[in-house]
């Protein structure tokens, strides 16, 4: 039976209570270090790594912003493990991306205590800074979001978040639950023994019950799924030829920033920057003969290839759209492809650590329809 | 059935002592084409061989099916292990007849009497019509018939049951 421990807070006290909780974790050595979103000295909220309790004061995990997908940071911290036990406060798209990275040997969760957050969505980084500058607080955002309103003076949460059907986190040790928890209350859930043990060492008491959480989660999820289906249908009807795709990608300058931001694009150097794609002059002339060759070339080729590379791992975090300097909405291209690719192999990115990734396994008698040939 | 009590393991020496019988590996070739196996009860040469091997004396003794054999010798032609099943059938008949005179078939009495089991030489007119001389049947030649009967009397089955043959 899931174990819950209540964290009550008066108005304006959420982050202080959370900092105190994180401080307990560190002080009582439930974890040796903690990676959590914290307010930066100047402005904005970024994931911050701290090892002692006095540095957690700025904790602001529920701030509606994810400047960089945490999976990438978790990978750097654990692909060559530090030997220290690290608590990580991540949202569902970050955890799901991390699960895929673990399977690609880019991260290792043995000494990690994953702390999952309920998520109403995130603003684009620039919008968030603008709102914070105008005095918006995390608690305001949570209250409005609970009432179903994420829009605030002209800005709204990212497109990916509006259609994300995973508001809560799985494969985590601890969950910070705010869905359906009512004002002034937050429930800390121990999901695994590791989580429970960490909470007990941090002195948490269990026994509370998450009244109304299931319905709240269902409500949010159903709304998101409906939005997703509509968005996918709209995308698929509008962009069903290469011509339409090229139109969408018209502004692309091959800066490959979407690759840098993507948590599951794990190559050290993308093949498109290696010498495989450093062509000779005669080749460009060859391609251009009789045609009009847009330069830089290999744009659609790059995006199509990236789709084949990560279709099986894409968790729909939307960082590609956020990262594009020319505001190309890449997320629908990748999420629709991912849904079809993962669907074909009954696979779901981030669902489980021991589910083999689609292209790493094969079977003698499967997919007979691909060739359609009986022996 | 308990072979230790109800079987005579040397029965085969009494019935069919050529050593061919043992080669049988029950492949059923003999029975799957045997004309007598269509009968009811069917003649199952394979099973007879088995009974001899086990030494099931009574069962074999009361078994009438060996007499159903039409001696087409298909089983002999096709038996892969050269068991010569047709020979075995004849030996079983001999063994039955020599231990139980009711087994002596009336046809032997006919042979003793008339030299043939079936009426022979009765188609005189048809042969004449076809310009053929009549058949030289043994009954027209008494000394030969006598020599023939003397020879038969020497065989164990007839010698043991001479009363049947007007001794």
């Amino acid at each position, binding site marked *: 039976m899931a174990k819950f421990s209540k964290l009550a807070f008066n108005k304006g006290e959420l982050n202080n209570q959370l900092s105190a909780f994180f401080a307990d974790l560190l002080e009582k050595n439930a974890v040796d270090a903690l990676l959590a979103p914290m307010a930066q000295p100047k402005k904005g909220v970024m994931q911050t790594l701290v090892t002692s309790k006095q540095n957690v004061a700025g904790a602001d995990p529920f701030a509606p912003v994810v400047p960089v997908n945490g999976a990438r940071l978790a990978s750097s911290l654990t692909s060559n493990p530090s030997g220290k036990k690290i608590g990580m406060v991540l949202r569902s798209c970050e955890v799901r991306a991390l699960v895929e990275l673990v399977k690609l040997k880019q991260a290792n969760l043995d000494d990690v205590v994953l702390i999952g957050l309920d998520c109403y969505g995130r603003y684009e980084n620039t919008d968030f800074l603008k709102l914070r500058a105008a005095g918006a607080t995390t608690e305001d955002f949570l209250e409005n979001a609970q009432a179903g309103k994420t829009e605030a003076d002209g800005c709204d949460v990212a497109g990916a978040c509006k259609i994300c059907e995973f508001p809560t986190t799985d494969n985590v040790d601890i969950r910070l639950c705010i869905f359906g928890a009512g004002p002034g209350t937050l429930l800390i859930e121990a999901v695994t023994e590791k989580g429970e043990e960490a909470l007990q060492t941090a002195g948490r008491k269990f026994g509370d019950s998450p009244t109304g959480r299931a319905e709240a989660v269902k409500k949010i999820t159903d709304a998101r799924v409906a939005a997703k289906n509509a968005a996918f249908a709209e995308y698929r009807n509008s962009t069903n030829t290469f011509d339409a795709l090229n139109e969408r990608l018209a502004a692309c300058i091959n800066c490959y920033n979407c690759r840098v931001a993507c948590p599951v694009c794990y190559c050290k150097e993308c093949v498109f920057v290696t010498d495989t794609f450093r062509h000779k002059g005669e080749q460009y002339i060859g391609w251009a003969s009789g045609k009009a060759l847009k330069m830089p*070339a290999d744009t659609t080729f790059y995006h199509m290839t990236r789709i084949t590379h990560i279709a099986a791992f894409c968790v729909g975090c939307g960082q590609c759209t956020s990262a594009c300097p020319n505001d190309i909405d890449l997320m629908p291209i990748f999420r629709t492809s991912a849904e*079809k690719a993962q669907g074909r192999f009954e696979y779901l990115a981030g669902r489980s650590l021991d589910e083999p990734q689609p292209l790493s396994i094969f079977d003698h008698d499967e997919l007979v329809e691909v060739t359609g040939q009986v022996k | 059935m308990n072979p230790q009590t109800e079987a005579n393991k040397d029965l085969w020496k009494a019935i069919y002592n050529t050593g061919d019988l043992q080669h049988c590996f029950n492949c059923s070739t003999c029975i799957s084409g045997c004309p007598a196996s269509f009968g009811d009860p069917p003649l199952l040469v394979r099973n007879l061989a088995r009974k001899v091997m086990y030494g099931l004396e009574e069962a074999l003794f009361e078994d009438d099916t060996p007499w159903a054999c039409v001696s087409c010798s298909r089983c002999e032609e096709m038996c892969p292990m050269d068991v010569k099943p047709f020979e075995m059938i004849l030996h079983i008949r001999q063994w039955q007849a020599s231990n139980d005179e009711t087994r002596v078939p009336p046809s032997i009495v006919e042979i003793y009497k008339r030299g043939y089991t079936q009426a022979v030489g009765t188609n005189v007119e048809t042969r004449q019509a076809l310009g053929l001389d009549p058949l030289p049947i043994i009954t027209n030649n008494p000394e030969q018939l006598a020599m023939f009967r003397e020879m038969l009397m020497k065989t164990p089955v007839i010698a043991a049951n001479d009363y049947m043959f007007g001794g």
Partner: protein
Amino acid sequence: MSEFEPKIVAFFCNWCTFTAADLAGTSRLTYPPNIKIIRVMCSGMVDPKYVIKAFLNGADGVLIGGCWPGDCHYINGNLKARRRVALLTELLSQYGIGPERLWLRWIAASEGTMLKEVAEQMTASIKKLGPSELNNPQAMVA
């Protein structure tokens, strides 16, 4: 322009399908010249990039020929190829290139006639489908 002659890039596995093509050649089974044969050591060696490159460069169809499951000289190359083609058809069909333009067929070394049939069927079916949208000079090659 004369009747549309489709260009089909064919990746043939060196062990089975390429041998079948050789065999078709020597036993006078001529197959349509639309098939542009590229020899690869195994159908498992065909990288999704090659298929995308071929379509973006104006190929009207791509045919991958491999050994029957169990025949592969490298034991399971063909099975991996089959998964990749399944993935590729899912992704490309959104943009108009579906299973009718991307074929994977098992053609054993002794099946010269099968190769001829597959080549003819594919050429005919793509001729009916018409050129791929990327195969016209005006298309901006991205």
